């Protein structure tokens, strides 16, 4: 009964979504207020219906209702409760449900919080959002209905893929989808603006918080996914340039560009049509990610149950949404009025450079990901594109990007003095030289030369961002109290920028450290054996059998010592899940801020007395994710900025002037 309720609510949501789209579009064209206003209650109703439907599906999973096919295929009565709930989105149908849940929440948020949006813009934004909902609800109902029953009901289910039964992954999809779907807001605003034929700073002020929110959650989602791959797959890598990883990375890169170009629209009323294009592209890349994962068009470790019918359907959606909006763009964008002019060396110039580099990076990843497909279609052979291509093409773009990232905030709008900006960055320059010198001395030439570049960049980004902040609050140039006051009164977006930019430095530090100086030992070990990695002694004490709720595990015990001192006891597991007959590795990790000690218990050798044990020493690796979480926090802090909350232009200039007679502060 309850699954039928959910099914019914979903069908109803489809019709409500139609109501959310068609009358408001007509109303906005004919200036009919009543028709436009329909969008608001419709958006809220659509959210409630979708939530109800989602709750019904969750209920079926929680009580293990094996008369529902989706539950049979992805759940098991002995599965822990956490994974019964997360298992709802751990499969194709359920993940699409989560997708639409996010979409309608964003839509309802605009309906509720968008009181001071111009009425036609609001109606059009909600209508476009409703149209996306129509597309995806149709997709779910026609090709991926999670409420289909099975008769007779089996006694138990097939269980969820054990790799997904992990706390890190349980929450990875919600964050990721919140990010993907969040970009739909920017898309809806862009399309609405094209229909309106008008883009102004107020528009940008509206787009930016949604983009920020989406970007922050996407950052978190990607960081979680990478962290999961690191400890669950047992190879100790954190990024594989797998097509599906790339599918989430491309919207992130484009979204980062959008975030920055929207600043220019907001502050300077320039780069308007470019920003619109970015908004369309960013969401299209999110859609394309969905398409790539589910169509089976590229091979990937993530491939969901592949069904060509679904692939065709998403392709049609993609064609309508992206093709339609780009066509609209080609018709309408030339009529948008160009805004303020600026010199190449200026804050706008720096942001344009940022956008160019981010777009190039996106294009690089795009080409690398789809190259095998293009080549195959033209019957030119089968290839796979891996890390070497991406490292060779992505890194050269990333380096100037990070260098410019630190300089940009020093430049003033319209026209700036690059020399003066660089002089003020002398502290960061000293930090770079010091960091590189210390690294070169300590590591004594081990590791590639690029590692020194990485360390230098990390120092540049981290110290440079903090120096800029210190400069802004006139630290050491005025009394501490005065600086404190300035810091408190700085806009939150300035805080957010500093946090996020500094954390990029932290992530680079982690990436460089583990790529350049990782040491490993992969050997067959018997209990009693010892291995030595990076100055640590690993003693393999014993292997015991452990019973989990839906698995059995071999748990190894390793004692780690350094110079005779006990450091840690590590207990990696090798789990065998009885229903799916899959084994997973649960690596054991001892983390300090400087490095990870990582042990994974692999397959037993043929005679069963020894195990393949992988031991890694990953220097600095935790900083990758600390940096990722920091970037997300930076985004969230920026989101609390006053002007986003009340939608009014900031009144900070006056506050800035009270700080004393230092050099004019660059506007943030």
């Amino acid at each position, binding site marked *: 009964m309850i699954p039928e309720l959910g099914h019914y609510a979903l069908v109803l949501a489809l019709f409500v979504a139609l109501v959310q789209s068609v009358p408001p579009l007509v109303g906005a064209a004919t200036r009919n207020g009543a028709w436009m206003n329909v969008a608001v209650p419709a958006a809220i109703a659509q959210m409630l219906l979708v939530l109800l439907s989602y709750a019904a599906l969750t209920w079926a999973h929680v009580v293990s209702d094996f008369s529902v096919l989706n539950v049979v295929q992805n759940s098991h009565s002995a599965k822990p409760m956490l994974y019964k709930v997360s298992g709802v989105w751990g499969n194709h149908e359920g993940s699409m449900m989560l997708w639409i849940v996010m979409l309608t929440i964003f839509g309802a948020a605009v309906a509720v919080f968008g009181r001071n949006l111009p009425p036609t813009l609001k109606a059009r934004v909600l209508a476009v959002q409703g149209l996306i909902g129509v597309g995806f609800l149709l997709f779910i109902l026609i090709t991926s209905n999670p409420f289909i029953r099975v008769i007779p009901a089996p006694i138990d289910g097939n269980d969820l893929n054990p790799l997904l039964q992990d706390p890190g992954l349980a929450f990875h999809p919600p964050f990721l989808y919140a990010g993907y779907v969040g970009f739909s807001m920017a898309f809806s605003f862009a399309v609405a603006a094209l229909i309106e034929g008008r883009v102004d700073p107020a528009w940008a002020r509206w787009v930016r918080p949604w983009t920020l929110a989406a970007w922050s959650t996407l950052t978190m989602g990607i960081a979680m996914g990478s962290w999961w791959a690191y400890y669950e797959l047992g190879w100790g890598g954190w990024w594989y340039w797998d097509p599906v990883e790339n599918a989430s990375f491309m919207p992130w890169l484009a979204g980062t560009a959008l975030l920055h170009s929207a600043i220019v629209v907001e502050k300077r009323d320039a780069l308007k049509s470019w920003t619109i294009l970015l908004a369309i592209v960013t969401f299209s890349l999110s859609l394309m990610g969905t398409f790539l994962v589910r*169509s089976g068009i590229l091979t990937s470790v993530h491939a969901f149950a592949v069904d060509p019918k679904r692939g*065709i359907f998403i392709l049609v959606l*993609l064609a309508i949404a992206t*093709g339609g909006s780009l066509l609209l*763009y080609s018709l309408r964008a*030339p009529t948008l009025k160009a805004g303020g002019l600026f010199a190449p060396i200026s804050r706008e110039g720096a942001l344009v450079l940022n956008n160019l580099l981010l777009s190039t990076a996106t294009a690089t990843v795009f080409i690398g990901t789809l190259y095998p497909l293009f080549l195959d*279609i033209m019957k030119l052979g089968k290839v796979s594109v891996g890390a070497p291509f991406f490292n060779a093409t992505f890194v050269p773009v990333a380096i100037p990007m990070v260098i410019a990232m630190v300089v940009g905030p020093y430049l003033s709008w319209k026209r700036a003095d690059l020399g003066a900006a660089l002089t003020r960055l002398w502290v960061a320059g000293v930090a770079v030289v010091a960091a590189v010198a210390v690294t070169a001395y300590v590591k004594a030439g081990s590791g590639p030369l690029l590692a020194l570049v990485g360390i230098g960049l990390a120092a540049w980004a981290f110290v440079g961002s903090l120096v800029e902040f210190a400069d802004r609050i006139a630290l050491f140039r005025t009394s501490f109290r005065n600086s404190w006051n300035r810091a408190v009164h700085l806009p939150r977006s300035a805080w957010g920028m500093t946090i996020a930019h500094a954390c990029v430095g932290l992530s680079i530090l982690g990436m460089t450290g583990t790529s350049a100086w990782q040491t490993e030992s992969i050997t067959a070990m018997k209990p009693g054996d010892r291995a030595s990695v990076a100055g640590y002694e690993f003693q393999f004490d014993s292997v015991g059998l452990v019973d989990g709720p839906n698995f059995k595990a071999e748990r190894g015990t390793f004692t780690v010592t350094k110079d005779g001192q006990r450091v840690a006891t590590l207990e990696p597991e090798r789990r065998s899940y009885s229903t799916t007959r899959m084994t997973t590795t649960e690596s054991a990790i001892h983390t300090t801020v400087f490095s990870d000690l990582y042990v994974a218990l692999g397959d037993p050798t043929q005679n069963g007395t020894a195990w393949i044990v992988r031991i890694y020493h990953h220097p600095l690796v935790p900083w990758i994710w600390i940096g990722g979480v920091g970037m997300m926090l930076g985004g969230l802090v920026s989101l609390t900025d006053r002007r986003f909350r009340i939608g009014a232009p900031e009144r900070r200039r006056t506050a800035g002037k009270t700080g004393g007679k230092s050099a004019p502060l660059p506007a943030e």
Partner: protein
Amino acid sequence: MRRLLYLLPFLLFIGVGVAFFLGFERDPRDIPSALIDKPAPTFDLPAIPGQMVQGQPAQGQPGAGLSSAKLAGDVTLVNVFASWCIPCKAEHPVITRLSREQGVTVYGINYKDKPEDALTWLSRNGNPYAAIGADQDGRVSIDWGVYGVPESYLIDRKGRIRFKHVGPLTPQVVEEQILPMVKHLRQG
């Protein structure tokens, strides 16, 4: 001219969309075998220990397993399977139909399996194979270029590999690819 610039994203997208559409017609998992049109590797695999062949325990019977000598003479299908492989179970009815109703001799290579598991699996699901070779250490399968089970190879009368299918056989693959190929090879 400026208008054209604004049209560029749309045109690029059309290109990508067409590529995606064409992409449906191919399978990224479909990797060409280097062994196509080459003679099948020479091998001699024993029967699964404990298996009964013609009412006698296979052990000790000469030629009870599978060797390259058996492959010559008729068009045959060599199917690599294992009891632990779930897709193998899915394709099993298709293989059974191929062997019992559609008149194609099917040989099995039992890949990295425990003998008792393999025998239980065969007695439970039926044994459509004219002969089975047990490849317990996977050496022979490496020669065949197997990189995942199940895989199937079509061998012509001269013992050459003419077609390879990776993954479970479906009725569609059998109808559209294997049976026409068998017919063609038998005539030629």
